[in-house]
């Protein structure tokens, strides 16, 4: 457990030294969501209807933006190999790296989403559901994305390939995440969507670090 926390601490410290990389993803999120009203028109009824989908798709893409860097730097300077050889299990260290990625790339999106939701005329309770759905969903995105990042580590055209591998796997998160807000707005209650999202998160917490570790070992061979 200490190893996990140490990895999280290390990755966050490293990222804070190069703030621009973290901020890029956040700015991307803000700009993409702001582009949609400009492309579609300022009609509040329509914007309110498409808001959950837009915010979620933008969050997916913003998460994707940070993924290639998840293991790349450590792979290049050999840290990853040291991690694989270290006495603490690689799975734990990988889990730490994923957690750090979420804290740096996912959590800012969760915190920004309610502010951006205001652009789309969402009311307070819908904003709450949106934030909650993203809080459950963004770690899921980081976990699934980590598998893709490990598989494409050091591979030709890694970034685009990563998107091709990971985006189809993001679809359930998108459907339930955006669906939660839509269901809430429609007065159906978001409980079912949120609990399914939580169930998927639990499943991913269990399996994703394991699959990521296996993929990393293959990349390191």
């Amino acid at each position, binding site marked *: 457990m200490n190893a996990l926390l140490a990895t999280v601490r290390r990755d966050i410290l490293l990222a804070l030294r190069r703030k621009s990389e973290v901020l890029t993803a956040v700015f991307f999120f803000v700009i993409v969501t702001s582009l949609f009203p400009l492309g579609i028109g300022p009609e509040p009824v329509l914007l309110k209807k498409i808001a959950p989908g837009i915010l979620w798709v933008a969050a997916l893409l913003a998460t994707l933006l940070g993924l290639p860097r998840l293991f790349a730097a450590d792979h290049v300077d050999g840290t990853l190999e040291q991690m694989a050889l270290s006495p603490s299990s690689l799975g734990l260290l990988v889990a730490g790296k994923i957690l750090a990625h979420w804290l740096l790339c996912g959590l800012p999106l969760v915190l920004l989403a309610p502010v951006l939701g205001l652009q789309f005329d969402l009311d307070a309770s819908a904003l709450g559901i949106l934030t909650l759905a993203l809080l459950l969903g963004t770690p899921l995105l980081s976990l699934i994305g980590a598998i893709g990042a490990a598989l494409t580590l050091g591979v030709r*055209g890694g970034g685009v390939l990563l998107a091709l591998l990971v985006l189809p796997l993001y679809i359930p998160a998108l*459907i339930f995440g955006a669906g939660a807000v839509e269901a809430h707005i429609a007065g159906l209650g978001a409980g079912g969507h949120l609990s399914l999202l939580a169930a998927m998160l639990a499943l991913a917490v269990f399996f994703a670090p394991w699959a990521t570790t296996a993929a990393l070992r293959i990349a390191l061979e």
Partner: protein
Amino acid sequence: MRQSIVHWFKFASPQSFYPLAGRMIPWFWAAAAIFGIAGLWISFFVAPTDAQQGEGYRIIFVHVPASWMSMFIYLVMAFWAGLGLALNTRVSGMMAQALAPTGALMAALSLLTGALWGKPMWGAWWVWDARLTSELILFFLYLGFMALQAAIDDPRRADKAGAILALVGVVNIPIIYFSVKWWNTLHQGSTINLNKAPSMAQTMLWGMMLMALAFWMYSIAMALMRVRAIILERERHTEWVKHAVE
């Protein structure tokens, strides 16, 4: 018993699998042709005109087999990939790689015939129906698998990375299907069920089964053909390959 296991493992080496595959291919082509001809005969000359959809329903005889095969091939591909990962047999990874393009083709055919069916029945080439959407996502999964394998130069790493992706995909497919279905029922309006044929005549079912068998045999023959090419490409520098190709 032990002898037979050893016997089977013998074919796990590319050297003995290459000629075996070569011998099996004509048989699978023959089976595909026989089932195909019988299936086509039933689909066009025996199966009656549908009461609601007229002759347009006959697309079912290629659409449904293509959809079935696209899903089935993904499972088989994941099975071979997993086997390769677990037992470290070389042919398994090659089989997975050989199956992927055929699976992608089946998914593409399913989408294409689905669109051609949808146009006269729904009045639109594409409807965000749960089945069509899942099929589209399956097509994306195939593309991802093939792109990943193509991007990695070391074939052993390509096999293993592809195997992990295929296994992750297999775990995800039920979740994706369920989520798309949920999404579809939530957004009512376009829920006309394509494959709901309440009074499907017995002959229609027979036609579909025979066509599915034909597609199945075709897929096996294709996979074997492609695996032979892959074996030659990968084992280029081994002694046996130099002697195998006289």
